[in-house]
C-alpha cells in the first residue's frame, strides 16, 4: 500500500474537484494500521478485504516474500476493520488446492464478524471433475449453514448463493450487469494507459498494450473501446438456448478472456460450476421460501430491503449502546 501516494491523490482530487470524486480500495489488509483506518474513515474511503477463509486456506495461497502466510496479520486488525465499517466485504478466491477448505473457510469468515462474503473461483486455474465433486460437497455443507443462519434471522450475504437467487427472484443478468468492461468500467495502469478492465493490464508491457483502449493523456481510442464493448455483449453461441442463460456467471468477459483468451468464449469450469451450484442454491431457496422465512422474503423480494435493513441495524446498534451506557 503506497499510503503516501494515496494521500497525495486524494488531496489533489479534493483540492481540484471538492468532494465530487469517491474512492474505493481493494486491500489485503496487512498494512491497515489505526492511522490508515482513521484517514480512510475521514475521507469515506471504503475498501474490500482480500481474505480467503480460514488460516490454512488463506496462507496456502497468500504469502509474504519470506513465504510466511499473511492471515494472522489480517486477523489482528479485524476488530478495527469491522469497527471502521461493519459492512466490510471479505473477498475470497478459491483455487483447486483450497476447494476442500471452502465451507470451513466461509463459516470462519462469518464467525469472525463479516456479514458480506464475496467469493469466486480462480477460473484460470486447472480444475477437473474431482474438484467439482469437492466443491459440490462444500457448497452443500454451506447451504445447511446458510439455512440455519437465515432461520435464526441473521443477515448474511454470501455471493455464490445470494447472487444466483437474485437472478431468479428478481431478474436475470442483462448485458453489462455482471461485467461492463470498456464501457461503464475501465482500468488505468500506472503508466496512464486505459484498459477495458484491471484483468487486462497484466504487466502493462508490449504484449498487454494491445489491449489498451486509450490513455489519460490522449483520451479513448473509441474504435478499440467499442470493439471490446461489442465483443463482451455478443451472445455466446455455447449458451444460446440454455435454461440457465441469464442466471450464471458466463457474462464476465474479463474472466472469459483470462481463461480462454477470448471475450465471448467461456471456459468449461464456469459451465460445470454453474450447473452444479445452481441446483444447490435453488433447493436452499425453495426451502427458505417453503418455511415462509421472513428474512428471505424481505431480502429477495422487497425493493426497500437495503434501506430498511440498514435502519434496523442502526436502531439495534443504538439500543445496544443505550443498554451499555
Amino acid at each position, binding site marked *: 500500500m503506497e499510503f503516501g501516494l494515496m494521500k497525495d491523490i486524494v488531496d489533489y482530487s479534493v483540492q481540484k474537484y471538492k468532494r465530487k470524486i469517491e474512492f474505493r480500495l481493494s486491500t489485503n489488509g496487512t498494512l491497515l494500521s489505526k492511522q490508515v483506518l482513521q484517514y480512510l474513515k475521514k475521507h469515506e474511503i471504503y475498501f474490500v478485504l482480500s481474505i480467503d477463509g480460514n488460516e490454512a486456506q488463506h496462507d496456502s495461497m497468500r504469502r509474504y516474500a519470506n513465504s510466511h502466510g499473511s492471515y494472522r496479520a489480517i486477523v489482528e486488525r479485524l476488530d478495527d476493520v469491522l469497527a471502521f465499517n461493519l459492512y466490510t466485504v471479505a473477498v475470497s478466491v478459491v483455487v483447486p488446492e483450497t476447494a476442500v477448505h471452502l465451507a470451513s473457510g466461509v463459516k470462519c469468515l462469518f464467525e469472525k464478524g463479516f456479514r458480506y462474503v464475496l467469493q469466486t473461483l480462480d477460473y484460470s486455474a486447472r480444475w477437473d471433475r474431482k474438484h467439482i465433486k469437492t466443491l459440490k460437497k462444500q457448497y452443500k455443507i454451506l447451504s445447511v449453514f446458510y439455512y440455519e443462519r437465515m432461520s435464526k434471522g441473521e443477515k448474511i450475504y454470501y455471493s455464490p448463493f445470494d447472487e444466483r437467487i437474485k437472478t431468479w427472484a428478481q431478474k436475470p443478468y442483462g448485458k453489462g450487469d455482471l461485467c461492463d468492461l470498456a464501457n461503464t468500467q475501465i482500468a488505468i495502469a500506472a503508466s496512464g494507459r486505459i484498459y477495458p478492465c484491471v484483468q487486462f493490464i497484466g504487466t502493462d508491457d508490449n504484449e498487454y498494450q494491445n489491449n489498451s483502449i486509450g490513455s489519460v493523456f490522449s483520451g479513448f481510442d473509441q474504435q478499440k473501446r467499442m470493439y471490446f464493448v461489442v465483443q463482451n455483449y455478443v451472445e455466446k453461441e455455447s449458451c444460446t438456448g440454455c435454461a440457465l442463460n441469464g442466471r450464471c456467471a458466463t457474462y464476465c468477459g474479463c474472466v472469459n478472456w483470462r481463461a480462454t483468451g477470448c471475450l465471448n468464449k467461456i471456459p468449461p469450469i464456469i*459451465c460445470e460450476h454453474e450447473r452444479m451450484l445452481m441446483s444447490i442454491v435453488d433447493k436452499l431457496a425453495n426451502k427458505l421460501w417453503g418455511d415462509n422465512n421472513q428474512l428471505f422474503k424481505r431480502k429477495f423480494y422487497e425493493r426497500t430491503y437495503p434501506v430498511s435493513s440498514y435502519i434496523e441495524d442502526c436502531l439495534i446498534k443504538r439500543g445496544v449502546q443505550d443498554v451499555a451506557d
Partner: protein
Amino acid sequence: MLRIKKVKKYTVAQYPQGIYRVKPDSPAQALWKGSVSSAVMLAILESCDGVGTTGPPPVLPEMVTENEARNVIERVFDNNDIDLQEDVDYLFRYGINDSTQLDLDGYNDSLNVGYEYIAGADSGTFTPEVINALDSAQSDSGPYVKTVDEFERSPDFETYLENLIQEFIDTLKVQGII
C-alpha cells in the same frame, strides 16, 4: 474432463420469480369481505357439517412434488457415493429402430445409471412403452434408469422413496454394475 453443456430443462427453482408482494384486495373484494352479506354467508357455511350438497368440493390428493422427490433420491445416491448430474439429455435407443430423447432428472455418465421422477409434463416423454423399455434395459446392458411414478404424499413418503432407491442401487451392486 470438464465440458460446456446446455441445460435443456430446468425445474429446480420453485420459489416465485419477480418482485413478490401480497396483492391488496380490490375495492369490490374489500367491500364484499366486509359486508353483512358475507358475514351471513360465512355463518351459514360454518354451520354446515361438511357433507352433502353444502360440503366442500372434492380435493385432489396432494402429490410428492418433483423437487421433494429429487431431494430424497439424490440424497440416497449421494450416500452411496454416486455423483449425478442433474437434468441430463439422454438419447435412449430401444427396440430395433426406436429411440427417444429423454431428459433425465439425474444421470451418471460413467456408470450409465440414473433416475427419473415422472411428474407433470414428464409423462409425455415417459410413456408406458418407454418405461417398459427402460425396465427391460436394466436386466440387459443398460441404461440403468430407475423410473418412479408421481405418488401421493404420506407422512413416511421419504422413507418409502429412500428404500425404493436404495433397493435399486443394491440390485445394481449385486449385478456388479456399480
